[in-house]
Each structure stands twice: as structure tokens, then as C-alpha cells.
């Protein structure tokens, strides 16, 4: 956020007085208008990312770097996240029009009253898994009973495991580090398996093994989430965005990833070429964007309503939302995705 001194002091004071909600400048996502010289004004879109720019945002960065958003009449800002990205809250309050998040958590936020609509897939399966040392005797989720696991305490998959396998385990709050894992042979932690393993092997430990959430029947996506009011007012802009976004993913995975990687390195100088290449290769090898059982790239960005019905069943069974409180159409839509027969 670029703010000059006087307004910064003002917003500081205003926040202290609890007035900042009103004082906080909010961009009005105006509908595209046609200027006098007949060049259409660009529609501003802020995308709130869930973490600092990395290959998990490859489609977005490739489309941005190639200029495809701009060609589509969009002025896109990719806003990095961090320890506290608060993607869903920022999208719900209109501080960002779109965000990248996880599908099941988003269902709960919708139930809590946050206006959120899931509009496209990032990964056909959320790559949050358990990381274990390769020689750890644990083979199955049932073996986790009584263990200590470092994970985000709010990860619903943990509740799901407790219920499904009737087990319990101790959770240590996630601290975004892999040091404990490297140092402790017994350590088990949540991780994005397209990122953490790189730093684990760089740290001198052997490549970890994984327990995949989907093997337990936990069927969640990494998704793009939209503010539904904004989506309703800007359907053409959103369609254009998703078109460029899917094109961005395809180009990032099949073509030259350099444009996206340069942008990622600029946004976060800690990104090294070796890490970016590793993470992209994992996304390709694990077919996370095209679908783990896919044979072609037609499913990039696609969401399946049947899978949402299963996700809703999961949170209903966990008593996190009452049965029938939400319908699939309350939480997701495919109407902004490009028409299907498209290669």
C-alpha cells in the first residue's frame, strides 16, 4: 500500500479512535467505462494471494507478465500474502476482488456469513499434506494416533481425521519453518508438498514421504474466490480474467516459465531459480493443475459441483454447519469459466 505521510498519520490516528472502517480508503471497483477517445478504461482487480509469490501462483503471474490481463482490459494487482494473509476476509470486505484460498475452509466462512463465491480451481487437489521422514514407520492415517503434529490449528482436515479414524493427536501451531522437521527424525508436519520438500532436502535431510489428504477422502481444491457482489456487477471482466488466467497456467506449465519466474523474483528476492524450477516441476509431475488423473489440459481451472456436494457433506458430518444450511450453488459457480470445448 502506497501512502504518503499525512494520510498515514491520519489513518493511524483514525484507527486508534476506532474510526478507521469509515476512514479507510476503498477502491471502488467501477465497471469498465468507455473514455472519450474510445479506448476502454481498464477494470482494476486486486487478487489477494495466500502466501508470498511462488509457483503456486504460476498461472496468475504468467498471465500478468505476458500482458494478457491488460489485453483483456484488466488492471490486475497481485497482492502477496504472509503469515496473516486473511484472504477470505479481504475478499469478503471488498479490499480485494479475488483471492486464492482453500475450498473447504471457504465453505465454513460462507456459513459464517462472509460473502464469498468460488469461481475457478487453482489446484484440483489442495497440496497441503503431512510430511514425514522417509524412514518413519507411520504408513497410514490411523498410525497418527497419539502423535505430535505441527499444523495450522484451523485446518479442517485435522477434525476430519479425528472423526473418520476415531483417533486423537497433539497439534503444535504451525510456525512456517522446516527446521524442526530437519532436526527431528520423528517430526510430522503439515506442508505444501510443492514447496517445503525443497527446503528440507536443501537443509540436508533426505526427501520426505507424504500422507495425502485426498487418500483419506478429503476432497478439497485450491481455489480462486470472488467477492460475489463484485462478480455480479462485472461478469464480463471476470470472464475475461479467467480466460487469461487459464491461458496463463497452460503457458506456465507447457511453455517458458521465465516471465512468471522473473516477476516472482522481483516480488520476492528470496526466490531462487532452483526453487522456482523445483516447485513448478512438482506441480507438473503431480498434475495438480490439470488434475491428478487427467490425460490432457482441458480441466485447468475447472470446478466440479459434485465434489462440492461431497465437501459440504464433510463439514455437515463434522457438525461444523447444520445439514442443508448451504447448497452447492451458494458456494460455487462455473458460470464465469470459459465455455468447455476449448483446447
Amino acid at each position, binding site marked *: *500500500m502506497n*501512502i504518503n505521510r499525512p494520510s*498515514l*498519520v491520519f*489513518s*493511524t490516528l483514525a*484507527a*486508534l479512535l476506532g474510526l*478507521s*472502517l469509515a476512514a*479507510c480508503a476503498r477502491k471502488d471497483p467501477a465497471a469498465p467505462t468507455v473514455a472519450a477517445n474510445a479506448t476502454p478504461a481498464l477494470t482494476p482487480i486486486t487478487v489477494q494471494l495466500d502466501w*508470498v509469490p511462488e509457483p503456486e501462483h504460476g498461472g496468475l503471474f504468467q498471465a500478468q507478465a505476458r500482458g494478457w490481463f491488460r489485453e483483456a482490459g484488466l488492471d490486475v494487482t497481485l*497482492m*502477496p500474502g*504472509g*503469515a*496473516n494473509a*486473511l484472504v477470505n*476476509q*479481504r475478499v469478503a*470486505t471488498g*479490499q480485494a476482488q479475488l483471492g486464492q484460498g482453500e475450498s473447504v475452509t471457504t465453505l465454513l466462512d460462507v456459513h459464517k456469513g462472509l460473502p464469498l463465491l468460488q469461481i475457478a480451481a487453482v489446484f484440483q487437489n489442495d497440496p497441503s499434506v503431512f510430511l514425514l521422514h522417509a524412514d518413519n514407520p507411520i504408513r497410514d492415517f490411523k498410525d497418527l494416533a497419539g502423535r505430535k503434529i505441527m499444523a495450522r490449528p484451523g485446518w479442517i482436515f485435522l477434525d476430519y481425521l479425528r472423526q473418520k479414524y476415531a483417533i486423537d493427536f497433539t497439534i503444535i501451531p504451525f*510456525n*512456517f*519453518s*522446516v*527446521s524442526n522437521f*530437519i*532436526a527431528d527424525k520423528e517430526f510430522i508436519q503439515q506442508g505444501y508438498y510443492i514447496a517445503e520438500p525443497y*527446503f*528440507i532436502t*536443501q*537443509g*540436508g535431510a533426505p526427501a520426505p514421504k507424504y500422507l495425502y489428504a485426498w487418500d483419506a477422502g478429503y476432497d478439497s481444491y485450491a481455489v480462486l474466490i470472488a467477492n460475489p457482489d463484485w462478480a455480479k456487477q462485472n461478469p464480463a471482466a471476470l470472464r475475461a480474467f479467467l480466460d487469461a488466467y487459464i491461458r496463463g497456467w497452460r503457458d506456465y506449465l507447457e511453455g517458458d516459465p521465465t516471465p512468471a519466474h522473473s516477476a516472482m523474483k*522481483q*516480488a*520476492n*528476492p*528470496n526466490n531462487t531459480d532452483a*526453487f522456482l524450477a523445483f516447485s513448478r516441476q512438482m506441480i507438473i509431475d503431480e498434475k495438480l493443475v490439470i488434475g491428478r488423473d487427467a490425460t490432457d489440459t482441458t480441466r485447468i481451472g475447472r470446478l466440479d459441483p459434485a465434489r462440492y456436494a461431497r465437501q459440504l457433506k464433510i463439514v455437515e458430518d463434522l457438525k461444523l454447519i447444520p445439514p442443508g444450511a448451504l447448497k452447492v450453488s451458494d458456494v460455487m459457480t462455473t458460470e464465469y469459466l470459459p465455455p468447455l470445448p476449448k483446447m
Partner: protein
Amino acid sequence: MNSRLLRWFLPLAFASLLLLGWQLLHHSLPPSRRFLLPDLSRIFAAFREHGPTLLSAARYTAWTALAGFSLAALVAIAASLVLASSHLVRTTLYPYLMALQMVPIIIIAPILILWVGPGAPSVIIVTFLISFFPLVVNTTQGLLSVERGQVDLFRMGRASRWQELLLLRAPAALPYFFTGLRISAILAPIGALTADYLVGTSTGGKSGLGITALLYSARNEIPALYATALVGCALGFALVAVVSALAWLVLHHWHDSYSSNEK
């Protein structure tokens, strides 16, 4: 003369002991765990390797710390004047001043992100909240810590309340104010670093030491993580040095604590 030499020598001697202890500890660890306490040469190498990143992060954290700290000092002066003005006001507001310090920052963080947005304004507010309390408590105490006899003297001379405040109470409060300022000077940089971790943003590669530490931690860059910690310390020392110099400048003419008899 001798004591001056000692003042440099003793901390430096202690530092070399610490470094020696560090190296010994490093080598006594099993090889698989040595990365947790890296060889000192690797930490120095990290300074070279990550120099530009650390420098830009330090600059960002320095200015947010300074902004939050200055804001805290200004607001504390104003608040202390109000608090010192009446016993009633003090009794009414004091619990809330304490509450301001007691509310955990991790609870404020998400609220700030949603109200103010991630980035410098939120970082400055958190730094302000962390630095404010010692300042306001000390300054208020200072304004009230005037000898009864001196007040009586002013009253007998029919001094106005403004004269009493400006000529008697304010000078008396200065040493207290600087004590608060020194405590806050230690808190402000670490506050800004923590705030950056919780409510900062890395937009355009512009982030402070907190986000930098978060990323080094996520990427297991342990030597760089220690380097970040040292930079954070350096910022704290720098701010304390500035405040101490300021205190000397203002107080050394007249205040006991700077008299030459003191060691």
C-alpha cells in the same frame, strides 16, 4: 580514563566469550543438528550473501519503528499532560491505558489487517501500541513528582498554572520522560519487526525484517535468520543510542544523574 577503557573492554570481552561458547556448542552438537546453531563464519557469510535484502528490510523496519516510536512519544506527552491535570482523570483512564498494553498483539493483528490493510500503517500502529505505555506512565509520574515545597513556592509567588507546568513540572518530568523513551526505544524496533511479521506485506519486494525472518524461516535459511536477528538488535541499539544522546544533551547541564561524581 581507565574506567572508560573498561567500558569498552568488558562488553567486548564478554562478547568474545559468548562467541567462543557458541562455536563450542556448535561443534558439540551432533552433525545432523548443527544447522540449528550454524558456524559463525556462515552467519557472516549470510550478511554478505543477503546484504541487499537485509539492508532494504532494515531500512523499512527502521522507518516504521521510528514513526511508531515518534507517534508514541507525541501522544504520550499530550496524554500525560491530561493525566497529570487531575486525580479524577487518572483514576478514570488508567485501567484503560493498562488494557492498551495488555491486549495481545496477535489478537489485534487480524483486526488491523482488515481495517487498515496489511503494510506500513498497520505496522506503525502496532509499534505505537507497544511503545506507548512506558512513555505515558513515566512521563505522568514525572509531572507529578515535584517536591511539595517547590509547588508551594510557586503558589506563594502566584505563578499561573501554565508557569507551574512549564517552569516547574515539565523540567521535573524530563528525566522520567527520557527513562520512558529509553525503554520504548528498545521496544520499538522489536515491535516493528514483530508487527511486520504479523501485519506486514511484501508487496513489490518491499518488506521489513519480520517478513524477511518469516521467509528465511520457511526456507530454512538459518544463518540468514540469525543475521536478521542481529540486524534487529543493531536497530534497537541505534535507537537507544540516539535517545541516550538526546537525554545527555537535554539533561547533562543540570541533572544529578549526569554529574561527574557518578561512575
